[in-house]
């Protein structure tokens, strides 16, 4: 678990921690970068949209090993849950924008969805909860 305030200056510290965790779990370099990018973008979105650029608000990240069964295969991975206490987010605003037009902004959600196998947003009580999961390539249980 990692608890921090919504100060963007902490983003680099979180990126370092996530990258190290993904490396320790055995993710290859490209996936380590994409997982780190997804968490970084999710945090930036919390600061910008959930907290309206207030830099003293609480954010909590939870990390745990993930596991799911698919047919004869078991997939293992990393689950990351980001929680904030901002107002409820309109789910319609969590859609990716089209990349066909050349304009700044709106790419963060696209990066998150491209990086992660699961992206789930829920509202629980007074908390927004974003659950991100990345699985390794599947391994057969017969081995």
């Amino acid at each position, binding site marked *: 678990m990692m608890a921090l305030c919504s100060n963007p200056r902490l983003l*680099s510290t979180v990126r370092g921690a996530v990258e190290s965790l993904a490396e320790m779990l055995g993710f290859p370099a490209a996936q380590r970068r994409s997982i780190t990018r997804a968490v970084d973008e999710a945090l*930036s979105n919390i600061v910008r949209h959930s907290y309206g650029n207030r830099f003293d608000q609480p954010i909590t990240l939870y990390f745990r090993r993930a596991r799911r069964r698919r047919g004869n295969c078991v997939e293992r991975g990393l689950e990351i849950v980001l929680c904030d206490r901002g107002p409820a987010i309109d789910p319609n605003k969590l859609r990716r924008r089209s990349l066909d037009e050349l304009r700044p902004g709106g790419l963060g959600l696209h990066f998150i969805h491209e990086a992660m196998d699961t992206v789930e947003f829920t509202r629980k009580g007074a908390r927004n909860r974003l659950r991100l999961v990345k699985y390794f390539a599947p391994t057969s249980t017969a081995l």
Partner: protein
Amino acid sequence: MQIQARHLDTTTIFDVSGDIDFANSPEVRQALLREIRESHTARVIVNLGQVRYIDSSGVASLVEGLKASRDLGSRFILIGLSISAREVLQLSRLIKVFEIYDNEEQALAT
């Protein structure tokens, strides 16, 4: 993150170092746009050789620099992209929108 501008004839070169993220991308955006609009140089080169990480707000700043350059008839060139920087431009389908070279010599020779 640090950003510094150099001038070579009709070219402005920005040397950027460190990570470009939500904390400092407004600084990058401001430096690029101010220089592009005030100097009106024919060619703007952004040297990202010392940049390890760029987030979506950093990409947005580069897009704004590109659009401002196009509006003024200048070229906007990126050099020295790290693997991570190249990845985000590919993910955002911008890799073919920007003029990209490996290094300063190649960019200046064009």
